[in-house]
């Protein structure tokens, strides 16, 4: 069980951001979305990133997930420096090191839950047999072992998000990045998903969750608050009340 191996691994720094700035150049106007972020996340931590809209949370998420590169500063994920990588190398880093969970689920609608989960494994070049085993395994883990052949449209919101979590876990990434994972869900499904995240945290999975949901944020191990592109608070969740 790959996840148990990473859970057993000794704690270390997985994410290390130093002096990160991100400037969006829209021609006439330059928007500085992040104004110098220093952040480090250790293996097994459950971090909630909170802040009002427009604070730079999404930009931070894009940088953490290697969807974008910083204008300035050093970002290392799992000891690998992200700066200066080609688009394809960046894609490989995302594939191996980052698992995404989106607010809008972002499952591919025309293929089954199983094929959705299989997709990152296809990109990672995992052999067919191992791929099938792994996809089934992670779907079992999120409790959808009996829904594998359903298309996303045949699933409820909570089930879709569970498929998305299974997909995020498929490649056994260094971190799971979730952007408002309960934002599109009703309360029941939301707490259901929250439960899965807590389970994952308990198993030693490194989680970074961007959220408005204070209930979810409080149950994380650590809360990082962003305002105007800067980190204004970074405390253990217990103190954040």
């Amino acid at each position: 069980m790959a996840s148990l191996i990473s859970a057993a691994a000794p704690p270390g720094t997985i994410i290390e951001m130093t002096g990160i700035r991100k400037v969006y150049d829209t021609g006439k106007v330059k928007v500085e979305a992040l104004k110098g972020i220093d952040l480090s996340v250790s293996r097994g931590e459950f971090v909630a990133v909170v802040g009002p809209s427009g604070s730079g949370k999404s930009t931070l998420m894009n940088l953490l997930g290697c969807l974008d590169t910083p204008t300035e500063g050093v970002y290392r994920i799992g000891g690998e420096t992200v700066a200066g990588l080609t688009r394809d190398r960046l894609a490989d880093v995302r594939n191996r090191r980052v698992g995404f969970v989106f607010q809008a689920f972002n499952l591919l609608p025309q293929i089954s839950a199983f094929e959705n989960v299989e997709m990152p494994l296809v990109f990672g070049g995992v052999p067919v047999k191992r791929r099938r085993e792994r996809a089934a395994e992670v779907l079992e883990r999120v409790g959808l072992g009996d829904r594998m052949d359903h298309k996303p449209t045949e699933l409820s919101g909570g089930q879709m998000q569970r498929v998305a979590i299974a997909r995020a876990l498929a490649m056994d990434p260094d971190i799971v990045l979730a952007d408002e994972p309960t934002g599109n869900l009703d309360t029941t499904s939301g707490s259901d998903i929250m439960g899965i995240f807590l389970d994952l945290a308990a198993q030693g999975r490194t989680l970074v969750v961007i959220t408005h949901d204070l209930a979810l944020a409080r149950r994380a191990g650590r809360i990082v608050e962003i305002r105007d592109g800067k980190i204004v608070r970074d405390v253990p969740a217990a103190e954040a009340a």
Partner: protein
Amino acid sequence: MNARVIFRLFLQSARLAGKRAVLTIAAIAWGTVAIVLLLAFGEGLRLQLDKNRRSMGENIAVIWPGETTKPWKGIPPGRSIRVTADDVPYIAERMPELSAVIGEVTSWRTNLTYGKKTVNGRVIGTNVVYGEVRKHYPKEGGRFLVPTDETERRRVVFLGDELAADVFGKEDPVGKTLLVNNNAFTVVGVMQKKIQMGMYGGPDAGHAVIPITTFKALFGRDRLNVFVIQVAKPEEMPAALKHLGEVLGPKLGFDPTDERVFGTWDTVKSSKTMGNMLIGIQIFLGIIGALTLLIGGVGVANIMYAVVKERTREIGVKMALGARASWISGPFVLEGLVYTLVGGMAGLALSILIVTALGFVPTAGNKALEFMGKPTLSLPIGIATAGILGAVGLLAGYFPARRAAAIDPATTLRYE
């Protein structure tokens, strides 16, 4: 690994494209039909014109004796040159490189009478090889002139098919007696119908051919109106024409370098010109066809752009999950190619059907259609079409694919 991933992604995404795919494929098929039919028409035209051109004779030059334009041994220019029937064997003997020499004497508006019917026709006195060189092939039951006809000055006549029909109507002329200026001739053969493009004096179908020796006995002259030389290979013609001046100059009294003594129609040269023109027509037709096909290609590209736009989020998700740019663009290129190739195949099949069907349309009797020939398919047409199809397909897939690969996952995933 790369190719397998691309193919797998292609299969997944192509599943939904059904109806759109059919329409696109139809557009490509139509473009293919257009290009293949145009090229096939051009090829048919080329083959037919080539055949028409050759029906007068291959690798020949037609030469009209004229006047000198240079002084020669004290004689001033402007002297008329006289070539007679005796010069024909003289040339043949001294120019072994020629495959044939023939002389022609013409009697215009000669009375040709059979029974009560008299027709004014053209009578050519010539050598026996004329039949081969000028492609006067006899219809079944007849023959062309033979050597003994010439040596024994026989009164035999070979008729062009239209002249024969004029004089004899529906009767078979072979073996019948035809009066040529009131002298009885036996008809030995009638020419097979042929489509003739080049001619001098008039169409072969409208004249009567008799031995040159008989002509001399009958009309009292053997000064050639025209003579024809034939070489084995087209490239030998220029040297042969130069040599001809050297052979005839001293005998007939003109400067061998005087090129304008003879009016020369070098059919080798003019067929080259026509060949170039036909290639030009082919290219022109090909371009029209290619443009039609290109419109189909634009259709494919257009639809694929729409697909890219529609699947922007999906592409962004795949990129977030670690798909490389080529895994995103590959399936689109493949899709464009598959549409184009499937459409091309359908179009090709349809074209073959149409060309085959056109082959059954009767053209006999219609001069214009006979002259143009029938659309013909050939390997070069297939290769050209396949090449253009492939290029259109690649381009149709390439541009949308490039746009797909340029999608920025960060911005795509942000908007709801």
